[in-house]
């Protein structure tokens, strides 16, 4: 048995198999009696599930700073039938976890639980979604704690760079661009939050996503608790129209000095389309080549060759009404100008030279493997597909993305780089010493 194997020739890589087609399982779709759509990604082999209730109730919909954030944050702090402490105790007693998250356009309430405890969880979830109380005492504590955390995060150069970038890009008055001030906290009252809640947290503004092992009687349970006629669609909410970006072309670098910094934080960006645009998929590949993965040109140049940083990335931010492209990194404080030079060198190289087939093959296969990972299993499918449903798109978006990844040519990539990488227009923010 021992040593019967012949030694292997390590200089030859094992033959590569092509990466499998995506198999995206179709979720089951339900509609609750009060018209809430419910989309379920089933994994019967698990013993756990998640319930994600998503509302169009992010910052976009607020009329004053922080209102969306704290409406969402306060949901767990007390309802008509439970105190904040009761909610925490009940949920955690069953080993469940409750997360509330407020983002740009959407806000959500997510519950992770053992599937057999779903009946115990739904009455609490119902009260959170329908009968939140916004108690003054809890609000004061939450606001104060958040204000203190703001003070700490303001000591971080990357936070300052992000804030400044957002302000210059969207505008100081824009719901996505304003910089939070301590005084904003003092303006928040239970009444304002309650008004926002009544207006935006209702069945007509909401989708429920499930993933994992879903009990056979789940539809009945959801109808009983979240689909009953005591929770009805509010008519007549109109949505604000798109606010123009404050972004203007400028040659200068916005430099903020923070004495004693040993690193400088850099953000460079430019407006772009979102993922509904026909050029999105090709740009997605282009972005990967530039700075979208660990083998990207920016990582090779600025981390591996120069040793200026621990990490650098570029990314496409797709929002329902906006989109932008940006590059972020924290670098040796004295080298920020060289880093800017190298970043623009890499961008210009994409506009000038064709990407080699060798490099493109690596990127194609990496992206296809990554897509396979993001769509592997019910939980991944649920979170990845939500990113398409938000734009009224479906699994087809990912099939088409995969097709472009496989087929986009070096010439098309260069044309995309020329069309969208206008280096003279890019917004540059640096927070350093």
């Amino acid at each position, binding site marked *: 048995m021992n040593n019967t194997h012949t030694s292997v020739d390590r200089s030859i890589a094992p033959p590569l198999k092509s990466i499998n087609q995506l198999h995206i399982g179709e979720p089951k779709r339900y509609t609750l009696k009060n018209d809430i759509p419910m989309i379920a990604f089933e994994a019967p082999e698990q013993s756990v599930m998640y319930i994600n209730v998503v509302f169009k109730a992010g910052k976009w919909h607020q009329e004053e700073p922080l209102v969306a954030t704290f409406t969402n944050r306060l949901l767990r702090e007390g309802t008509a039938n439970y105190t904040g402490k009761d909610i925490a105790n009940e949920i955690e007693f069953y080993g469940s976890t409750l997360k509330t998250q407020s983002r740009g356009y959407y806000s959500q309430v997510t519950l992770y639980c053992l599937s057999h405890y779903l009946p115990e969880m739904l009455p609490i979830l119902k009260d959170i979604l329908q009968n939140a109380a916004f108690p003054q005492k809890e609000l004061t504590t939450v606001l104060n704690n958040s204000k203190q955390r703001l*003070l700490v995060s303001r000591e971080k150069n990357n936070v300052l760079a992000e804030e400044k970038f957002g302000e210059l890009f969207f505008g100081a008055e824009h719901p996505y661009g304003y910089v939070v001030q301590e005084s904003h906290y003092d303006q928040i009252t239970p009444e304002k939050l309650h008004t926002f809640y009544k207006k935006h947290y209702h069945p007509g503004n909401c989708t429920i996503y499930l993933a994992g092992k879903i009990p056979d009687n789940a539809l009945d349970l959801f109808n009983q608790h979240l689909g009953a006629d005591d929770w009805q669609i509010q008519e007549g909410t109109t949505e604000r129209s798109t606010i123009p970006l404050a972004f203007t072309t400028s040659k200068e670098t916005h430099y903020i000095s923070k004495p004693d910094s040993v690193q400088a934080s850099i953000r460079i960006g430019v407006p772009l389309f979102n993922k509904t645009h026909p050029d999105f998929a090709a740009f997605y590949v282009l972005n990967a080549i530039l700075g979208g993965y660990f083998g990207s040109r920016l990582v090779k140049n600025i981390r591996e060759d120069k040793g200026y940083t621990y990490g650098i990335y570029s990314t496409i931010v797709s929002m329902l009404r906006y989109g932008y492209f940006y590059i972020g990194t924290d670098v040796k404080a004295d080298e920020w100008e060289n880093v800017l030079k190298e970043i623009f060198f890499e961008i210009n190289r994409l506009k000038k030279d064709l990407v080699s087939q060798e490099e493109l093959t690596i990127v194609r296969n990496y992206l296809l493997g990554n897509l396979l990972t993001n769509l592997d299993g019910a939980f991944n499918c649920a979170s990845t597909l939500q990113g398409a449903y938000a734009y009224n798109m479906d699994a087809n978006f990912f099939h088409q993305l995969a097709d472009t990844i496989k087929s986009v040519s070096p010439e098309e990539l260069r044309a995309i780089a020329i069309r969208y990488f206008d280096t003279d227009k890019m917004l540059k923010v640096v927070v350093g010493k």
Partner: protein
Amino acid sequence: MVSYNKFQLDNGLRVIVHEDKNTALAIVNLLYDVGSRDEDENKTGFAHLFEHLMFKGSKNVKSFDQALNVAGGESNAFTSTDMTNYYDLIPANNLETAFWLESDRMLSLNFSTELLEKEKEVVSEEFKENYINQPYGNAMHELRKLAYKVHPYKWPVIGKDLSHIQEAKLTDVQSFFDYYYTPNNAILVVAGGVKTEEVRELAQKWFGNIKANPKLSKRSLPKEPPQQAYRQERIEANVPVDALYMAFHICDRLHPDYHTTDLLVEVLSGGTSSRLYQSLILDQKLFNSLLAHHSGGRDESLIIVNGKLNPGVSIEQAEAAVWEQLERFTTEEISQRELQKVINKVESSFAFSEVSIGNKAFYLAYFELLGNIDHINNEIDKYRHVTSKMIQQVAKQVFRKENCSSLHYVAKNK
């Protein structure tokens, strides 16, 4: 329940396979039994620096990441006090590529002065990004130094000092590689859309002829003597709010008290129903954040409490309030419901950890590292056997003044 098959190659490499037919992906998790506790006190941060070098190519592989990416895979790694763990996530039909890559870097890693110099710069930037250019960035450095006088847990994984990284030498790299990066010091777990027989053949083919290190011996690290007196240190720095850090010595991961200790920490700080959150953040409003965790190491470890104070609260007042919560354990047993809650939470987190093949693969490797992989499936039973009385006993042992190191990290000019 996690199912697995286990076998061992003649060179000592332990191989564990978890078959999961619900995925088209495979994960190759290769754990080396070496961490920052194995470092020389004057050359700290080395295990982690070495982890970076593992991605710089090997004899037959110019670029590790490129070769994996072209097969649709991606990779990462982490270093802790007790281990260095590498994993490759890859479409299952390209599994062999990961075997080629992992075996080649175990057999013959590339190193050169140039590669080392460059990577020292990258790791120095990592050090700055996370531990210098951050408010409170050095707090854990200082707390570990205060709590440990002898044991290598006294320095953090990133290293005691930036200068140690900058002084690393190529000869250190060579000897570290030769000693620790050998099949008899590693555990290979392959999980996902794979078959045991296929893995057995691949393991034999790619790892079978890598030589074991015959000199590998059981480590003997200095044992931390019991702490005899309360320790306290004060740092004044340019931070916006005062922060409190407290460390208490606890047992090691294999000690019979481990599961009780884990639940004790959960009662103290698990979630928003926990005692610290409810009493000191919500009721008394002394802190705006306050958490406890334990380091769970293979040698005697720490429970660490850390929090940021609200304006107007003195650090002494804050520490006294934490003590009051800790002493509650010693005067009254926790209720049955509180006990049940933390056990339920453990059960639930086990169930959630089984959703990802990456988690499953790492846990399998970790339990094998601890000495007996079979324990992975009776872990929950060990938690179920914990009683309120046991929690009280451990709390009495741990939450003693002379077992505590306290760091007062306060804002300058206030």
